[in-house]
């Protein structure tokens, strides 16, 4: 929220932000994880769903990460799990972002709309997300869609509030006032002048949103309302491994490492971008 104050200086420094050590490290971490997920079918020919009698085995030549409780190859499951998480986030985050931004633009049209939109954000934030997840999954039946919907709903207020605050700041700046004095319509000023200047913080929000998506997917799996089994997902593998944390810690290691790397990378990118904007 406060970072917006810093988004004042209108200079596009996205790449510059990413050129810092932190930014590079972030891009590298996320890049490796994303690539591993995208190239999963090339990196392993083990079927992530094939079971065997060899359960909870340690790492070996045949199973680089070992096997899970049903004797499935963990390496393959983790790689395909990344794909699942990517697919979910790539659908859910943009939907949440677009809806949030649309609401923020609506809020900019009038005072009444502004109050209404703010209360909508309040409502979305007030609902305990995981209870909503239980309810949505119960209504729709389990699968990817409930996860996507829950994540999208959770992302709306983040983007919306961010953009609304940005618009409020930008609207009062000289160039916007000048445009309005120059006879440009309200909508035109908003879309042509104010909006482009208020989007910088949204890109930071985007990076944060992706890491939030990974967490929500994990928490939903932990509560038993994640993607439909036996499809692997990072959160699903991780939450299944929790029962074996003391007896077979290796089971949790790989999915945890991937989740941490992904989220850490996204956080680093967000920070780097943030500093880039600020500079």
């Amino acid at each position, binding site marked *: 929220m406060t970072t917006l104050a810093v988004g004042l200086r209108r200079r596009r420094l996205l790449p510059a932000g990413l050129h810092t050590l932190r930014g590079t490290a972030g891009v590298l971490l996320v890049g490796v994880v994303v690539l591993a997920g995208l190239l999963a079918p090339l990196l392993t020919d083990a079927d992530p*769903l*094939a*079971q065997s*009698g060899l*359960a909870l085995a340690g790492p070996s030549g045949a199973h680089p990460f070992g096997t899970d*409780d*049903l*004797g499935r190859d963990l390496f393959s499951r983790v790689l395909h799990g990344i794909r699942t998480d990517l697919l979910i986030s790539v659908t859910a985050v943009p939907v949440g972002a677009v809806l949030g931004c649309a609401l923020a633009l609506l809020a900019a049209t009038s005072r009444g709309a502004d109050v209404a939109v703010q209360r909508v954000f309040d409502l979305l934030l007030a609902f305990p997300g995981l209870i909503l997840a239980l309810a949505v999954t*119960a209504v729709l*039946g*389990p699968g990817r869609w409930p996860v996507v919907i829950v994540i999208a709903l959770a992302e709306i207020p983040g983007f919306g509030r961010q953009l609304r605050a940005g618009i409020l700041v930008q609207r009062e700046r000289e160039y916007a006032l000048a445009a309005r004095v120059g006879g440009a319509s309200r909508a035109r000023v908003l879309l042509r002048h104010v909006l482009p200047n208020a989007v910088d913080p949204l890109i930071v929000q985007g990076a944060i949103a992706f890491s939030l998506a990974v967490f929500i997917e994990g928490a939903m799996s932990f509560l*038993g*309302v994640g993607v*439909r*089994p*036996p499809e692997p997902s990072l959160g699903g593998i991780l939450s*299944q491994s*929790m*029962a*074996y944390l*003391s*007896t077979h810690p290796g089971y949790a290691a790989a999915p945890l490492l991937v989740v941490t790397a992904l989220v850490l990378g996204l956080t680093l990118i967000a920070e780097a971008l943030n500093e880039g904007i600020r500079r």
Partner: protein
Amino acid sequence: MTSLSRRSLLRGSVAAAGLLSLAACRSAAESGDGAAASAGPRRGGTLSLATTIDYTPSLLFAQSANTLVQRLVFNTLTRYDDQLRPQPELATSWQPAADGRSITFKLRDDVLFHDGRKFTADDVIFAVKNLQNPVRSAQLRSTAATVTEFRKNGDHELTLELAHPVSNLFDLFEFMIITDSATVEDAVAGKQLIGTGPFRYGKRTPGSSITFTRNEKYWNPGRPYLDGVEIRVIPQADSLVSSLKTGQSHLSYHVPGKDLAGLKGSGQFQLRPYDTGSGAYYIGVNVSAEQVKDKRVRQAISWAVDRERLVQQALGGYGLPSAAPWPKSSPAYSDANATHYRHDPAKARELLKEAGVSGLTLPFAHSNTPDGTAIAQILQHDLKQVGIETELQPTDSPTMQKQLISQTMPALWTLSHGFAQLHPATLAVSAYPFNEAKNSSHFSSPGYTDIVQRAWKRPDSDSAEAKALYQQVTDTLLDEAFVIDLAIGGQIEVAGTKVHGATLNKFNYLNLDDAYLTV
């Protein structure tokens, strides 16, 4: 600059240390169980029991997922020993008529309810009538309903007249708790429980805990040994296991299968399996679904599943792979029945071919708990190997229950069932999956109904003739395969080494009359 940071760090740590030192005066973390020297029963102590499922007051009179409370607060007329022979409890002796159409009980005359009222024959009459009430949803209602008349002979002798003989009569008396008639509505509303049992109902914090205190006027002299019992509700199975490992809880019957192997290896616990309640895992088939109408398809499913692997990977090795519903303690058990279907994918494929079925894709519902999900995935994989694709439908228990009751289950589902641990007739007249009159599989056949009724409506339960009828029931179940049994799991008692003498009855009622804690 650094002095500042040190200082603020210091302040933070002083505050934290304050909290910790406050914590140091009394520890809420129990020290782990050492090897306790057992020196016979000891009076005193509070037993802490962990369960994943909270008790549901409205299901007090039905067999449900949590039946730990029933035998703590209440008593039954009789209780079974390991061979299903009834032993006296509130009834001291009984005399069935030769034709099996009546039975006369002599009752204890020294029993008081927790509110001080004396227990009499009227309380037994109330208990039977209460179970006849459909609103109580008692599974043994059909058996209770055979009682048509009550004849009192004084306050402590009672004759029950039956409409027809039933072979599972004593299952009813193992099941039926004797409650105080005046407060029964309070009991099902969760307000109070008044019985004659070893413990008085204390405080319940829904979703968290229930406490019980010793009944000082219990009819069994010197019992119970314990001062109190606490049932702790820990919905997350992993947390429940942690609670046992830290010694915070002493005893549990709800440890998930996959955790059992780890606990067994630790040497910190005694594990004991019971042939009781909801412990048989099965695949239910909705025979009204077009693709599984042909019994050869259902038989193929039964050949396709690897019961051994299921027991190893999902049940921690605790369970008996079996194609029939009966545990070893049942009069209907035989090795031949249990191994009637073995893991034989080739045979399964052959049967499917014979039935002219290929490219099957079936919806497959399962409970969305970690255990239920693991079992379903194992079965899905096995079925895929013979060419049957399934789409898993993780379902939460209220939805499942509604579908079961309203007979709207998908083509396949997997769950667990109880009632096979009793007299075999009880399974077929009481348990929903097997009920001859109305079951979730939509299966009915005059032949099945006839055998079930004959096995049920007879005065004896373990003559050669009775056993022959049970075998016919089993043969039908195996041949028709509308319920495909996978493994007999039973309840596994996980007890810390301090705990002695806890037992379950055949309906999973926890009996702590003789239980004690060593130091």
